[in-house]
């Protein structure tokens, strides 16, 4: 309870009392006489009660009359000003003795719904404090934290009172769960919750859509027996080490298999959910839903496509005109250098527009598919890049005979063309070396592109696939890059359900890998 109580006397004007209530945001004021004995209580309720015929209803009446006649106001005002607390207060208020237990306080509040607050009096009926509903709520909220202070002699609750509190808490909790459930079940991301043994206890609709399984089919089962279990053992060791031992979220790309057998790579975010003691209660796995992302991106893609096509022709015209102008014999060397600069700038702008256009096509489900041999295509790209970078040494190795793939070829080629050009352009300036390899391993093609250039700085590594990111090294080595190359590659890989990653270390250069499940190329037909 509150011991420093603001109280009023029966003779206090109702106006002042109302101001006190309002100013302090009290629900009620105890009324005491000259010797401090409680004689009543004035609550907000009393102020709006029609029977007591004052304040709010009266005030409204005055205001209404104010608009009609001027004379009546003064009279009304006098009436109001003359009102005393005594005329309105409840002179037989419910009180609690200072010796009352917490249980009695709880009971008083549960039995008298409208009562709040309750004055606390001593044996002589003198006011010693006031206790409000919010005091009780505060007590129960702080309960665990303040345990040591209140337990030994502290108030004891009867079973009934505890029962009432528990019931109240449970119903609050139920509300929260309901809210949580409705949010989670309609979320765009696929969400899966398992118990500590990884047995599935919940999957939302997006998860059902993504995996092709219904919740009923998977309840109580282990993800590895459904879509999972397609990653190497070390992957799962690391996963469990992170989420179970370190109790930290695990973020990675993971290969799953849909109910219909389609393999796909997905970004996965798995986090342990801990109780207040820090013990793991559940695991939650969240995978972004591509379907939704696609819809949101559609407008943007179309917009980029329109802008891109509109920019393309004028840029080309400028390029040709500048090229032509540069060949003129009537210009000075200095002017020719300026023209060359214009030409270069224009060309980099044109490649930027090309990149944007490629990007706008990623994820379009109208993309046609064809079967082709990856080995033949990569050989051709290596030849082309070699020609453009005559000082770089190239090695291409393919283990295995058949590397046939069925997917959208131009998109897929974007990945390899970009990676191989990058490898060459960022290889060692003096003795550049690029090694490209292709292999078939566990039903997956693995493409790798290694160079002996400078390593990617530690702080740049997480950002390397981001839009418009260019490392200082990249800016230094290749001018006119758009900062979209790797972003495009990543977007296409995500869209195809392919995995892309890289390894980079000082003195050992950088290797980019692309892993393509042989049976995966149709993944996006499902979306």
């Amino acid at each position, binding site marked *: 309870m509150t011991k420093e109580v603001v109280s009023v006397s029966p003779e206090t004007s109702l106006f002042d009392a109302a101001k006190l209530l309002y100013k302090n945001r009290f629900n009620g004021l105890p009324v005491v006489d000259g010797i401090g004995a409680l004689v009543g209580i004035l609550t907000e309720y009393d102020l709006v009660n029609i029977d007591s015929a004052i304040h709010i209803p009266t005030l409204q009446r005055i205001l209404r009359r104010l608009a009609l006649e001027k004379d009546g106001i003064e009279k009304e005002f006098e009436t109001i000003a003359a009102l005393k607390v005594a005329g309105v207060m409840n002179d037989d208020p419910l009180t609690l003795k200072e010796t009352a237990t917490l249980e009695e306080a709880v009971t008083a509040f549960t039995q008298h719904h409208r009562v709040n607050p309750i004055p606390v009096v001593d044996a002589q009926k003198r006011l010693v404090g006031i206790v409000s509903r919010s005091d009780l709520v505060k007590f129960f909220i702080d309960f665990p934290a303040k345990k040591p202070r209140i337990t030994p002699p502290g108030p004891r609750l009867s079973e009934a009172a505890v029962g009432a509190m528990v019931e109240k808490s449970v119903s609050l909790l139920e509300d929260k769960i309901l809210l949580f459930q409705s949010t989670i079940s309609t979320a765009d991301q696929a969400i899966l919750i398992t118990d500590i043994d990884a047995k599935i206890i919940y999957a939302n609709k997006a998860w059902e859509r993504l995996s092709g399984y219904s919740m009923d089919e998977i309840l109580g089962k282990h993800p590895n027996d459904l879509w999972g279990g397609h990653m190497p053992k070390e992957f799962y060791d690391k996963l469990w080490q992170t989420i179970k031992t370190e109790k930290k979220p695990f973020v990675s790309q993971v290969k799953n298999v849909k109910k219909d057998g389609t393999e796909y790579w997905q970004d996965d975010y798995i986090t342990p959910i801990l109780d207040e003691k820090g013990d793991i209660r559940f695991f939650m796995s969240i995978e972004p839903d591509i379907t939704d992302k696609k819809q949101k991106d559609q407008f943007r893609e179309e917009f980029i496509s329109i802008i891109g*096509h509109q920019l*393309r*022709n004028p*840029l*080309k*015209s400028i*390029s*040709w*005109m500048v*090229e*032509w102008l540069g060949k003129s014999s009537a210009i000075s060397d200095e002017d020719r250098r300026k023209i060359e600069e214009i030409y270069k700038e224009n060309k980099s702008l*044109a*490649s930027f*527009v*090309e990149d944007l*256009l490629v990007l706008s096509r990623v994820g379009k489900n109208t993309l*046609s598919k064809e079967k082709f041999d990856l080995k033949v295509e990569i050989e051709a790209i290596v030849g082309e890049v070699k020609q453009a970078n005559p000082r770089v040494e190239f090695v291409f190795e393919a283990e295995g005979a058949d590397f046939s793939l069925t997917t*959208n*070829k*131009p998109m897929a080629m974007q990945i390899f063309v970009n990676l191989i050009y990058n490898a060459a352009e960022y290889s060692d300036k003096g003795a550049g070396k690029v090694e490209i390899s292709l292999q078939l391993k566990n039903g997956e093609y693995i493409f790798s592109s290694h160079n002996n250039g400078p390593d990617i700085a530690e702080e740049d590594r997480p950002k390397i696939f981001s839009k418009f990111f260019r490392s200082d090294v990249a800016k230094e080595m290749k001018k006119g890059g758009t900062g979209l190359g790797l972003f495009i590659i990543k977007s296409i890989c995500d869209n195809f359900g392919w995995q892309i990653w890289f390894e980079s270390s000082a003195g050992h250069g950088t290797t980019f890998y692309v892993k393509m499940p042989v049976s995966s190329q149709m993944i996006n037909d499902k979306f």
Partner: protein
Amino acid sequence: MINFNINMGEGQVRRPAQRTILIIEDEGSSRWALAENLRKENFDVLEAKDGEAGLALAMGRRPDLILLDLVLPKIGGMELLKTLRADDWGKNVPVIIVTGLSDPAIISEAAGLGVSDFLVKNDWTLEAIVGKVKQKVLE
């Protein structure tokens, strides 16, 4: 301010030469650049700024090679190509498509109609395009 006060009329022939090239391109500056650079190489150059005029010039003058844009007013480039290929003379004339479009679907459709080359404008310099024309015509 550059003065583009040059006659860019259709079917303009500047000087007599052995080989005739028809440029069908709606964009004035691109057409001008291509035409002037080909004339420097002693080609007879015919110019058309839409598909209809282009088709008429092709049938009437029977050029040795056609540089064709795909996005054209009146008759589109792909339709023009189909009409051309249905003609006895037109089915064999070398056509190089010079376009801003790099859509793979269009490229494969054009390939099916027998084009000599498919040049995506932004990837090709004027010099390279002129070189390509010389190579095709003289081979």
